[in-house]
């Protein structure tokens, strides 16, 4: 069933500390479908259920009464190979550099494939490929201690550690949190390139609408444990009032374009970049002149 989809989620609910006085529902009837190779952004305030949701996708939290299929395989079935699942669904946590623990970059990235039973030349090949994907020079970095690396390099090592397992689905939980703009852009470019080069399915948890606008095919908005809105960014940003009500807002340029339309100036509000917005306005300007 659902073989053509990378991820199918049906009726997924989860309650923290269920059956206690402290029970708090974190997910309510979440349903989602992701196509192979799709780039999906997951957005929502802290506490909206984003992180709880993604932890279900590689079996860190059991599915309970809901169901999840990864590449057509029901991961809630008894006897599901969780190790295989986690190889297929790579999860990069928030502040992944906190999980870099080996003495050299090579050893850290090799940790996953080594556990899968790889050794010798094959292991070296896996590490080399993963480092290549995040553009860390193999010879320059393999013997370096993670302690000597910059924040951006360290984060790339952590991502490479997940890539070395050759997952078909990659989930990143706020991969740019706490980075400066330059490093943030480098990491985002890295992820975009990874997506286009490998054809991997990517799920990106983010707080930034601007970030999401540039990258995602589909944006899914979580609120209060449920999916409140979803759609391609161009369409989704048109629902600015709803997004604002959810405490999320839309990129500034959308507000400018909507402001113009509200004042009777006919421009297309479905823009994603400042250049697209500028082109719209310039076109309109020349029409008037």
């Amino acid at each position, binding site marked *: 069933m659902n073989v053509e989809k990378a991820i199918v989620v049906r009726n997924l609910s989860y309650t923290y500390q269920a059956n206690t006085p402290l029970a708090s529902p974190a997910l309510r009837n979440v349903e989602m479908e992701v196509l192979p190779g799709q780039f999906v952004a997951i957005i929502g*305030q*802290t506490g909206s259920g984003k992180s709880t949701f993604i932890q279900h996708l590689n079996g860190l939290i059991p599915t309970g009464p809901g169901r999840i299929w990864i590449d057509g395989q029901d991961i809630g079935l008894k006897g599901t190979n969780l190790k295989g699942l986690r190889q297929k669904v790579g999860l990069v946590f928030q502040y992944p550099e906190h999980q870099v623990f080996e003495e050299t970059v090579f050893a850290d990235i090799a940790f996953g494939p080594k556990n899968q039973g790889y050794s010798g030349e094959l292991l070296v090949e896996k590490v080399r490929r993963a480092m290549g994907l995040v553009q860390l020079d193999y010879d320059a970095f393999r013997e370096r201690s993670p302690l000597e690396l*910059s*924040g951006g390099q360290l984060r790339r090592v952590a991502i490479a550690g997940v890539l070395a397992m050759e997952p078909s689905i990659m989930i990143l939980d706020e991969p740019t*949190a*706490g*980075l*400066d*703009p*330059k*490093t943030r*852009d480098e990491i985002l470019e890295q992820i975009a390139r990874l997506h286009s080069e490998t054809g991997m399915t990517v799920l990106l948890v983010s*707080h930034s609408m*601007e970030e999401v606008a540039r990258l995602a095919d589909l944006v899914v908005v979580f609120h209060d444990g449920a999916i409140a809105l979803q759609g391609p960014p161009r369409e989704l940003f048109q629902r600015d009032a709803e997004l604002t009500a959810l*405490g*999320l*807002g839309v*990129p*500034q*340029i959308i*507000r*400018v374009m909507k*402001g*113009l339309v509200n*004042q*009777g*100036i006919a421009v297309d509000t479905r823009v994603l970049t*400042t*250049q697209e*917005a*500028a082109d719209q*306005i*310039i076109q*309109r*300007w020349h029409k*008037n002149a």
Partner: protein
Amino acid sequence: MSRLLEVRDLTHSYLTRTGEEVEALRKVSLEVGAGEFVAIVGHNGSGKSTLAKHLNALLLPSTGVVFVDGLDTSVPENLWEVRQRVGMVFQNPDNQLVATTVEEDVAFGPENLGVPSAEIRKRVDEALAVVEMSEFATRPPHNLSGGQKQRVAIAGVLAMRPKCIVLDEPTAMLDPKGRQEVLRTVQRLNAEESMTVVWITHFMNEAAQADRVLVMQEGRIAIEGSPRQVFSRVEELKELHLDVPQVTELAFLLNKAGLPVSPELLCEEELVSILVDKLAG
């Protein structure tokens, strides 16, 4: 506006583990007036944090001088006076809270200063009221959200009765809601209590709220001015890999295409009303 902070020809160098000398600050000069709100931006390694740490004598100049309220920070006898006048708030909220309840945490500073206990009680209550955290006074800090923790850290600084708060990327680890909370709290302190604020950030929308913005690059102040002046230099900022508010960038692109729109714009309403004038009819 009287001068509260004065930095003159400040250079700071240090040795790395491999024995290389790094010049983190190169002849930086800066004045901050009492009650001013100054934002410092620049990417990692540009010298922002090193500069900030000189403002309350956590670091001392290699050459040059730093005066806080007229006190030379390199004079050992001035140390406590300087630290009491300039309080610091750091990036990671989890590393700054030390006590088991919020109020004990806020009391930590004045207790160390030997303030009488009745006075401590008064200061803690006032500080928590200012950051709107009074109702959490007896709660353990680890259960708070990131934004709430940072507000408690700010209250801890306020209980020392400083003249200036230096915040080093106080919002970097917070979600958008937490960022708003912390920024609003500090803006209110600045407006209502005339607190001098030095706010280090990567978020340009935060820097846009300041009276003055300094852009640091390679240990120097590369650009300085009002937010409008600084952000309108779109090309230079992009070269430094810094963000520009989307509205400013849009105005810049329109200006470049020959439309009579000034790039010195920060908010969308401004741009909309200018464009409506020019495009209507």
